[in-house]
């Protein structure tokens, strides 16, 4: 059984439709990860007793255990507490929370890299705390870590197929469906791989270019 171009072209529209789902989940998941990660980093910076230790434990626990198990956990456990969400939403939340633990560390490094003098100057001007963050610290900390955040968005894109475990029809699940309907696995899975390459290679090149420009400044 070799490569069949007619079949490959015939299934392409459906594969592209599934790619769209994958991209939507990546974008929404990234939004959760970027916002929640920032919140975790800023709250941890305040070093509130107990809250800080709890957040630390949460971040370490989530980072050290498989995303797939966390996906199943949310999928099976949330309904027990009366929270009934579709597989798509569970996927966005699981990816978003998992990656928030990564991005919180990235933000932390960025915040730590802002010179002490900036904090002192902001305090000397008696800026309110919210202005210190939004007007002084974050505008310096966030651009520095953009390449690292970009890399995590690309990683997340490649982890979306884990959601086939809970029935989300993303690219790989679509390939699985097609190959079990037609008994031809070669074309669907190869196209799935190529679609990932086609998006993540240019994205990585973009991030690397951003990185180099930051390094040059």
């Amino acid at each position, binding site marked *: 059984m070799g490569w069949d171009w007619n079949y490959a072209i015939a299934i392409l529209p459906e594969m592209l439709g599934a790619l769209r789902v994958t991209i939507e989940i990546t974008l929404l998941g990234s939004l959760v990860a970027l916002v929640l990660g920032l919140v975790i980093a800023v709250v941890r910076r305040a070093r509130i007793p107990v809250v800080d230790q709890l957040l630390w434990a949460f971040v370490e626990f989530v980072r*050290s255990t498989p995303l*797939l198990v966390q996906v*199943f956990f949310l999928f099976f456990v949330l309904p027990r507490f009366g929270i009934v969400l579709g597989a798509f939403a569970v996927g966005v939340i699981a990816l978003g929370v998992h990656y928030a633990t990564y991005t919180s560390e990235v933000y932390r490094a960025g915040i730590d890299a802002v010179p002490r003098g900036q904090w002192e100057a902001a305090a000397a001007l008696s800026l309110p705390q919210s202005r210190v963050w939004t007007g002084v610290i974050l505008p310096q900390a966030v651009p520095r870590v953009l390449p690292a955040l970009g890399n995590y968005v690309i990683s997340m894109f490649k*982890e979306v197929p884990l959601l086939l475990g809970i029935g989300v029809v993303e690219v790989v699940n679509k390939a699985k469906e097609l190959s079990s309907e037609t008994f031809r696995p070669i074309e669907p899975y190869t196209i799935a791989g190529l679609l990932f390459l086609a998006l993540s290679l240019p994205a*990585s090149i973009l991030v690397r270019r951003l990185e180099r420009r930051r390094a040059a400044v």
Partner: protein
Amino acid sequence: MENLPRIVAVLLDGVPETVIAAAGGILLTILLAFSAGLALLSEHRLLRAISRTYVEFFRGTSEVVQLFWIYFVLPVLVGIQLLPLFAGVVVLGLNHGAYGAEIVRGAVSSVPKAQVEGAKALSFSPRDIRWRVVMPQAVLEMLPSFNNLFIQLLKSTAILSFIVVSEVTERGVQVLVPNFGDDIVLIFVLMLLIYLVLAVLITAVMRWLERIGARRLGRRPSASARTAAVAAAH
């Protein structure tokens, strides 16, 4: 709670497969990371091109696609059906080996040039320069990154449940969830704890290797260890 012993027994039943997958994956990762990483630094353009293609290809596609490709497509193309666990080890190794290659390349090129010049001045052979001067320092540099990579690999073993390897995740989701629905929170907490313990074990081994490596190179403890010691003394 009365089901606790049975739940624990079923999950522990999956531990050997998870450990074999992780250990096999780690061995293959080390092998591929060093081969591809050193090839990336080679003077031969062809070798560099092959290695670069391997690295970009495996870093650019999803691990699940790689797994399904090797498990479902390869048999149709070449007639070789891999055993699920073996297919899993191969994919875990190929995928993480590509990331490891960049770690090896980075660490080897970060060894100060003066080390090589010094060794040349002492008329070390090129072979000795590579293996007795550059590599020992580079390997020590790589250990923390490899620690992270191995933990990623351990977490990735969960995807083997997709091709029905009876590892911890498969045991939990396919066997326990349908049968012990009332203890669902307990099942997941225990599953996550098993992975956490394995991750802590990996970190402990890597830290131990770091300490041995630092001692053998005659290095002082790391900066953070020094700060801790100073803080303790005050």
